[in-house]
């Protein structure tokens, strides 16, 4: 299969959007996961529900809510525009924002599971060895939750690659700017005789996701080094 340069541009855009989405949301997701795993605080369940919201609402609604908040007419959008001249709607950063929001719940859940599985006694050991609680977090909890970080990043990346509803609503469908793979597929589906293009783009999606998967499995295995598992 030969990929045309137009398709190639779509792929690169999709990768950039997904990559930025994951990169930006990763630390936020991890911080949320840590809070939910390790702290008990009032409003915890509300935060938890809020994080899950993009999962349970139809993507189009999430996109609409983003539009209301981050559009130029929205509170945050107007503020961003006035103070920094930043516009998120209708360009690729908006697509990345939409993807990040949709990916967040998946990332948080996977990471939280891994953080909860870290043996707290190891944190205690690090403390007696002279590590502040922050340092103990960095050297014990964080590295031991790498499987969850990897799984979360993988899920988030895949979800970002597949994101459609929130993106088309919030960031629009502009070729070269916000037309990611799913939007291109949608455009193809809307066009009489567009089935061939749809098939090609779907195959590209599949190959990309497979690549991301292999990469993430490989990274995890490398991070865990030769650590054996014994019966």
């Amino acid at each position, binding site marked *: 299969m030969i990929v045309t340069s137009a398709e190639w541009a779509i792929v690169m855009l999709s990768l950039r959007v997904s990559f930025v989405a994951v990169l930006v949301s990763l630390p936020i997701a991890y911080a949320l996961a840590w809070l939910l795993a390790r702290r008990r605080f009032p409003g915890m369940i509300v935060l938890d529900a809020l994080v899950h919201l993009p999962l349970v609402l139809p993507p189009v609604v999430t996109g609409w809510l983003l539009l209301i908040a981050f559009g130029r007419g929205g509170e945050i959008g107007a503020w961003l525009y006035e103070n920094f001249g930043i516009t998120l709607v209708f360009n690729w950063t908006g697509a990345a924002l939409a993807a990040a929001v949709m990916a967040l719940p998946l990332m948080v859940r996977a990471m939280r599971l891994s953080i909860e599985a870290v043996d707290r*006694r*190891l944190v*205690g*050991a*690090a*403390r*007696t*060895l*002279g*590590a*502040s*609680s922050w*340092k*103990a977090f960095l*050297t*014990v909890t964080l*590295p*031991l939750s790498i499987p969850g970080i990897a799984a979360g990043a993988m899920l988030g990346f895949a979800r970002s690659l597949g994101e459609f509803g929130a993106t088309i609503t919030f960031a629009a469908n502009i070729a070269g700017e916000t037309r990611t793979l799913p939007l291109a597929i949608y455009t193809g589906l809307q066009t009489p005789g567009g089935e061939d293009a749809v098939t090609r783009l779907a195959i590209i999606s599949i190959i990309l996701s497979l690549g991301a998967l292999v990469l993430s499995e490989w990274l995890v295995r490398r991070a*865990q*080094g*030769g*650590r*054996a*598992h*014994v019966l």
Partner: protein
Amino acid sequence: MSFEVEITVQPGEREISGRISSDARLTALVGASGIGKTSVLNAIAGLLRPISGSISVAGRVLFDAERGIDIPPEKRHAGYAFQDARLFPHRRVAANLDYAEKLAKGRKPIIARAEVVRLLDIDGLLVRWPDTLSGGEVRRVAIARALLSAPDFLLLDEPLAALDPERAERLSTLIERLRDRLEIPMMLVSHSERDVARLASKTVRMG
């Protein structure tokens, strides 16, 4: 005074009170299984907050419920060899030792790394992952890590329990040497009367 401890801790439902007042260089803490020895060490190290009382080691107040003093564990500078080892599973043995050494940087070491490695005979284990070690190997590495943290005092929870006689003898000699050469207070939990008699100048019996 080496150890001046008078605390009540509550690791579970039951309250446990411990009172240790010792100016021996090496104090042994003995008592039946489950009586609360490990809990007392945890309290001294700062991992278990007593519900009341006070702790001071080598004249430094580490905890005082009434005065609201509670030094965080990393500032207590305990060299704690845990009963359950607690090696970091994501670091090889050498990196477990590095961890202690790096955080101890700028403080006065009590023993050189080469010497610890030789005396505890863990040279061959340095490249290994903790979960591939045998029971006794795990304990030896845990003790090495505690010794390398440049501690102000040592807490050794049954350090000799899993060791074969030859290695136990070597470790006992090392403990004796540290005891006689250094000014740092040591507390030893042991079930072996023989070891206690040999190493400790003061024995505190719990329960």
